[in-house]
């Protein structure tokens, strides 16, 4: 439904609006039916309009009045509608009658439930169905830099996890301990809800279950119920797809599939180090995938909370010269692609020869558990022109003096050779006018290029496969050239001192003004090309050449991060 107002005939709009009031005449009903049978677009409009009407009705008129069979809210969070100062009208006679009728209806339901209960065989002196037995609750027993969505009334360390409340952990990691000592680690960003009886509904995010015994709970993710049956497992959900990773443990996936108009239950068992992936609601069986052991936290790392990517982020945010900031944090793609400082927001860009067989990973594991990294997709073969990454919606004009700082992890492509180019941050405005500010060339030489007709300027650093690096480049524009300094530290091996890998190097060309490629660049026809291979995080652009001491201070904030 592209534009409801323009695409939908007024006649249909009027009839659907009247239908919401329950005031359709026979003639109206006939007319509405004809319109709906005639057009799928009309039916979609009708269903979406009725859905909106129903949501508003449910939350404002009904949810509070319904008998709650669980004894708790049971409906998820009430929609946080800002409430203007309206005096709630007292119900008039009809409303009271309706309320009375509803109560009668509710009583009938309760009565029928009781009758059904009593009608069961071999029961004597059966009481009415008891209220749910309170179950010993899980407690939040640990957390690292958790940030909860505002207004969510989050759980408190050491206390029970509230039931039936949708919780949104924007970042950080929390540890939850269940009554029978099973532990659950949830990494932000994640949205989840604990239900009575030991159920977690994982809407989005990463979750690790740890326990020697079978877990005393189940995880509902999408269309499946996942039953941990001992050991460690990892679960990932993004609202559409679900992944189950064996981390040495066992689990069972239970799904209901529709087959020939009937519902069929299917069970899939996972054990050991394998993995399964499936689309929620699809009719197909889960597909076996390689288990990604490194993707799931196995324990809360005992480390100094004053040192982390989150601390670096905080320091960067407080820097007055920061002009653009891409942290890739957030609970939606839109949020993750936001420029957290400026207005040069990002959007997906598919390479000139196609996206290949993958997609961007917006929740790639970062250097530590306080962050999510961005994983552009680079196709294993022909990767220079195949893949998908991000670029800005608007043009980026590099300032006269500039610093680009980021965390990166490079994975050497399968087809890596002399022609391999993977760009982390780039612009280009023509054959010669380019700004390949942070690049891995060949087997992973950290390089840059500001003039398409010149040679690559290579540092003496070859990025080690799968290592995390802190990297910073500074640029000072001259007439037709740019003075560049570059610094880096291999975080994975625990380097604590910033290494200068380019010192006052005068590089041909000046940074080009164009859309800003993040995890990609542009070929000489300005087509999308050269996707990054690996992960990127905490990309910060400043309108000044930062002092090496400031950069070292940023690195210091990461020092205690786990190698």
């Amino acid at each position: 439904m592209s534009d409801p107002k323009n695409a939908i005939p007024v006649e249909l709009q009027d009839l659907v609006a009247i239908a919401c009031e329950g005031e359709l005449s026979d003639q109206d009903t006939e007319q509405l039916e004809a319109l709906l049978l005639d057009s799928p677009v009309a039916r979609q409009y009708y269903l979406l309009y009725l859905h909106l009407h129903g949501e508003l009705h449910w939350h404002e008129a009904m949810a509070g009045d319904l008998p709650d069979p669980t004894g708790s809210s049971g409906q998820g969070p009430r929609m946080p509608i800002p409430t203007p100062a309206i005096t709630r009208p007292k119900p008039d006679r009809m409303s009271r009658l309706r309320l009375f009728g509803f109560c009668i209806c509710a009583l009938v339901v309760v009565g029928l439930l009781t009758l059904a209960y009593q009608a069961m065989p071999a029961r004597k002196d059966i009481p009415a169905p008891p209220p749910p037995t309170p179950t010993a609750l899980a407690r939040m027993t640990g957390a690292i830099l958790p940030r909860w969505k505002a207004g969510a009334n989050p759980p408190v360390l050491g206390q029970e996890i509230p039931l039936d409340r949708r919780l949104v952990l924007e970042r950080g990691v929390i540890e939850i301990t269940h009554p029978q000592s099973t532990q659950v680690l949830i990494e932000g960003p994640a949205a989840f809800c604990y239900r009575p009886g030991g159920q977690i509904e994982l809407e989005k995010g990463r979750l690790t279950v740890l326990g020697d015994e079978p877990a005393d709970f189940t995880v509902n993710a999408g269309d499946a119920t996942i039953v941990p049956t001992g050991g460690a497992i990892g679960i990932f959900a993004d609202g559409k797809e679900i992944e189950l990773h064996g981390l040495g443990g066992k689990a069972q996936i239970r799904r209901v599939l529709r087959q020939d108009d009937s519902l069929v239950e299917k069970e899939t068992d996972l054990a050991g180090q394998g993995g399964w992936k499936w689309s929620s609601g699809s009719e197909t069986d889960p597909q076996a995938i390689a288990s990604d052991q490194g993707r799931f936290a196995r324990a809360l790392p005992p480390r100094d909370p004053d040192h982390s990517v989150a601390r670096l982020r905080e320091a960067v945010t407080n820097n007055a010269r920061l002009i653009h900031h891409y942290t890739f944090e957030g609970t939606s793609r839109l949020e993750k692609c936001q420029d957290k400082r400026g207005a040069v927001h990002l959007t997906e860009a598919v390479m000139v020869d196609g996206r290949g067989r993958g997609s961007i990973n917006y929740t790639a594991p970062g250097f530590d558990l306080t962050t999510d990294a961005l994983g552009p997709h680079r196709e294993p073969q022909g990767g220079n022109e195949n893949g998908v990454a991000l670029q800005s919606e608007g043009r980026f004009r590099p300032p006269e003096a500039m610093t680009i700082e980021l965390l990166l992890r490079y994975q050497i492509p399968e087809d890596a050779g002399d022609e391999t180019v993977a760009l982390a941050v780039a612009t280009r405005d023509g054959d010669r006018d380019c700004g390949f500010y942070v690049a891995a060339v060949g087997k992973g030489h950290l390089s840059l290029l500001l003039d398409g007709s010149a040679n690559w300027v290579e540092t003496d650093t070859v990025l080690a496969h799968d290592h995390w690096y802190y990297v910073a480049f500074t640029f000072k524009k001259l007439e037709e050239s740019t003075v560049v300094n570059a610094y880096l530290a291999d975080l994975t091996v625990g380097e604590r001192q910033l290494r200068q890998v380019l010192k006052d190097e005068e590089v041909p060309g000046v940074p080009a003004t164009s859309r800003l490629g993040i995890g990609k660049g542009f070929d000489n026809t300005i087509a999308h090309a050269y996707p990054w291979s690996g992960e990127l995080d905490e990309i910060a652009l400043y309108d000044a050449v930062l002092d090496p001491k400031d950069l070292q201070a940023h690195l210091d904030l990461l020092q205690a991060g786990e190698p």
Partner: protein
Amino acid sequence: MEVGNVNDSDANLDQKAEAFARLLGRCQRKVFLYVLGLIHNAADAEEIQQETSVILWRKFDEYKPGTSFESWACRVAYFEVLKYREKAARQRRVFSVELVETLADEAEKLADEFDDRRDALEGCLTRLRDVDRALVLRRYQPGATTRKLAESLGRSVQGTRKSLHRIRMTLLECIQRKLAAEERQ
């Protein structure tokens, strides 16, 4: 969730009631919305939802643990809608079985999107003009109707209905924009 192999012993009857209450509580809203889409009358949809709850309890032994209770509930609700339709058709014109079936199929296809739309609606409500938000909230107060709202405001029913329709369309457009923006990313 161990509700499988339920027999009627004292011990697990409690468990069964608890499991049922929990599952029902989680899908009431969706069943209501599903039914409303098929019959477009909120009061009747409430009744059908209640009747569906009774039947679900009666047939709870047929429910397979670990399967989607929501899908099962909607299936039961669908048959209740057909029964309701048959009864109502004696008094007034109602949607044909053919249309109800078509709408049910298409509602099922939109089910995933409905959750996203609900999330988007939260944000869109906050973006409404204060006066519009106040009007739509009053319309959906318990027992409220457009007719009564118009009377209390001293406006015509037609005018109030048009205002509400305009606000709903604004919300639909806002929701669509939000979803499209996310899709583009």
